[in-house]
């Protein structure tokens, strides 16, 4: 949306379009004095003080030795809007309303916008700011530098705003807040579900390896991982310079392709040139396990299984390929290696320096693996998969719908500022009349 689009917006006839400067009592930059972060002096706003449309009192600066006059002049008042006019494109135009929970001075790098309360509700204006921000109005009027953009104060002053009758503004704001808190609650729950799903996956694995899904009642034996391994081998070294993403050579799996959940992603593969001999040595086939031997302390030890191959693929030297004998279902082992219990044991054998951690084969192989008969292993894997696939599907849906909730938010705002969210009341004083009255009063005061 640009200013042109705003000019052509259709409103109910009790509304008018008006430039921002007509709605304000005050718009200005903040106090530009040296700030400290060591709680000395009086708290003052900074760019990062605005987060999630609220004022975060933990992220304020402090200024010492101010005169009483300065404190008085720059103290924020109830209903003041702080506007981020210098920021990266994605944060440009962020706002927060000051509700006077704790005293705060207006610092530099944020604009203070104080509305004329006789004409416009500060909450209403703030909601319009939100819509403008998300629909790109602010970016369209900003000046862009390398890392940040800025909005010139006079351009902002000349931006068009919808102005409904004052009573209607309050009704709109109230309805928006009601709908948005429901939306927020929904988003919180959806995010909660994502966390719960993580726990659910772990819990499924735990139950599986406690034997709870084993209906065959076959005997479980304890092995060392090493005993079960038929063959293991670290991958091929190719430096970053030798890798391309132009499909030249052979596909090359790296550690970031291995997930935390036992999967191996074949997206974003890179390619390397290899000899025939190398290719034969490092070629992957289905059911191969890849174990991540070197990574950050947190990520090292990720294990994934190749479930399908789209082309010939080889693998990187931070990964170890593991193959098992006939009596072992590799997927069963991968799930076990992803369980909290196995991870806890792996934790004890991690070797780390400041930058990188490693797990060596000689430390990994003695770790314990529990397994029933091959038939039971297969059934347990099926039980796990039926549960995890449902969890995956739910997570996918949640991610999609989290994006949709953002869209919904914007579309509610848009509807609101077209006058379609709440009904008009013929008894309300039309915005034009109100403005005329206020202008006259202003004249008289002069």
């Amino acid at each position: 949306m640009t200013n042109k689009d705003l000019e052509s917006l259709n409103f109910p006839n009790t509304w008018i379009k008006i430039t921002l400067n007509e709605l304000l009592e005050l718009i200005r930059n903040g106090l530009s004095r040296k700030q400290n972060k060591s709680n000395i002096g009086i708290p003052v706003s900074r760019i990062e003080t605005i987060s999630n449309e609220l004022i975060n009192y933990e992220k304020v600066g402090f200024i010492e030795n101010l005169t009483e006059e300065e404190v008085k002049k720059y103290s924020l008042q109830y209903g003041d809007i702080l506007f981020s006019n210098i920021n990266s494109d994605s944060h440009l135009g962020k706002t927060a309303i000051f509700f006077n929970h704790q005293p705060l001075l207006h610092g530099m790098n944020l604009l203070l916008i104080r509305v004329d309360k006789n004409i416009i509700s500060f909450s209403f204006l703030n909601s319009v700011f939100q819509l403008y921000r998300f629909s790109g109005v602010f970016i369209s009027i900003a000046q862009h530098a390398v890392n940040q953009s800025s909005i010139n104060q006079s351009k902002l002053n000349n931006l068009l705003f919808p102005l409904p009758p004052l009573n209607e503004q309050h009704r709109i704001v109230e309805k928006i807040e009601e709908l948005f808190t429901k939306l927020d609650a929904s988003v919180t729950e959806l995010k909660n579900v994502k966390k719960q799903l993580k726990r659910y996956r772990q819990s499924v694995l735990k139950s599986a390896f406690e034997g709870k899904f084993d209906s065959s009642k076959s005997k479980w034996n304890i092995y060392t991982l090493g005993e079960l391994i038929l063959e293991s081998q670290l991958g091929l070294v190719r430096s970053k310079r030798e890798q391309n993403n132009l499909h030249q050579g052979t596909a090359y799996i790296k550690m970031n392709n291995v997930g935390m959940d036992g999967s191996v992603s074949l997206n974003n593969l890179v390619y390397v040139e290899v000899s025939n001999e190398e290719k034969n040595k490092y070629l992957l086939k289905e059911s191969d396990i890849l174990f991540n031997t070197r990574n950050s302390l947190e990520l090292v030890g990720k294990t994934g299984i190749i479930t399908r191959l789209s082309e010939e693929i080889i693998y990187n030297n931070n990964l170890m390929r593991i193959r098992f004998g006939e009596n072992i279902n590799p997927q069963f082992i991968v799930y076990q290696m992803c369980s909290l219990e196995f991870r806890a044991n792996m934790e004890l054998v991690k070797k780390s320096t400041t930058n990188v951690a490693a797990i060596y084969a000689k430390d990994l192989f003695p770790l314990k693996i529990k397994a029933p008969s091959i038939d039971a292993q297969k059934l347990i894997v099926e039980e796990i998969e039926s549960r995890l696939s449902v969890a995956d599907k739910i997570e996918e849906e949640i991610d999609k719908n989290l994006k949709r909730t953002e869209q919904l938010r914007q579309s509610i705002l848009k509807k609101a500022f077209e006058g379609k969210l709440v009904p008009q009341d013929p008894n309300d004083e039309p915005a034009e009349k109100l403005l005329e009255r206020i202008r006259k009063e202003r004249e008289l005061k002069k």
Partner: protein
Amino acid sequence: MTDSATIVSKLWNYCNVLRDDGVSYGDYVEQLTYLLFLKMADEQTKPPFNREAIVPDKYNWQKLTTLDGDALEVQYRHTLENLAKEEGTLGIIFRKSQNKIQDPAKLKRLITLIESETWIGLDIDIKGEIYEGLLQKNAEDTKSGAGQYFTPRALIKAIVEVINPKPSETICDPASGTGGFLLVAHDYISHKYDLDIDQKKFLKSNTFFGNDIVDGVVRLCVMNLYLHGIEANISAEDSLVSDPGKRYNIVITNPPFGKKSSITVFNGEGKAEKESLVYERPDFWTTTSNKQLNFLQHIKTILDINGRAAVVLPDNVLFEGGAGEKVRKELLKQFDLHTILRLPTGIFYAQGVKANVLFFDKKPASETNWTKNVWIYDLRTNIHFTLKTNTLKYSDLEDFIKSFNSANRFERKESERFKPFTYEDIIKRDKTSLDIFWLKDESLEDTDNLPDPDILADEIADSLELALEQIREIQNFLTT
């Protein structure tokens, strides 16, 4: 036979026979209500009671027992139609009544089943228990939606315990359902106090008041109370329409949850239209289509000065912006909102409901805020209930009852699950939200005790249900 459970199961088994004919649980309980009432009215006319018949001879129980086949069906139909026109309890019980058992042979069997028992001779407690048993069964039938009227008995008992009703106090439930709150309060007062004759009379006839918007439910409620020996004043109307004028010492209630923020009305062309229910009432703080907020505002009106209220309300009343914020601010200021009990999930028949009990007292007008501290009891975090296997029991609420300290609630002790929050702190929260938690949720944190998959799956379902519920409400508003 005096074992109430046996009678319940006998009556209930027969219901399964009727189910094959398309008679729902709800319909069945309703038909039982009519027949039981006729039977007991009949018993009252005989020795040793020898009372004057309240049911006209033409439509009494005797007539039904003598007939068969189509003649029985016709007689029963006429009985229902005509008794609906009577005044008083009779009229309330039979209002808009219809025969739902189309097969006369099956109707006959049910009549014979009831005939074989002497109901009036049964102890009041047992009769009430039988009927309550049937209502509970009906509530468990979630498909019929009957569950929304049912609050777990353990919870009701705990609420009544801390509200501590006394003889000669009036008690109202403006969303009475089948009368659970009123019954428990009746039990509480009659067991705790040694009542004199006047007090007994007051308890029986002048203590209990109720309302429900659904005709059928009012019928069940009146019958339920009647079988417990209570003459309650229950009316079948929408509580929210206007200020009834009467004020009560105690209001205890569980208003219906969500989903029905709009009703379907039919316009002149027979097309269904959705209409938002908005109540314009001068005594309300704000106009909203949110049903729970409207109930809360209604309760603040009908409560007498120094009256006490306990209301079961869903979470969104605690966090919702707009009208919700306005209502919370006024409640904190004009009332003493002293306690919030955060209920666990899995205790209501409606899925995924996250609810609370708000306890507040009405106070005379004042310049300053009446609420000083809101004590919140968290019975939700890391607590798991289900309707079938792990149900909420009274013992689960004992710590809350103790912590509430109704004998002297100004001498409460803080504990892991029970904390006070000052008015000043709450007022500063975004949207004056009362949705406050402080305990770590073990199902989300990496602790040694990872819950079983089924518990986590329950919680995920609850969260999704709740997310869905919020979106539905938004959808509901946007499409009307």
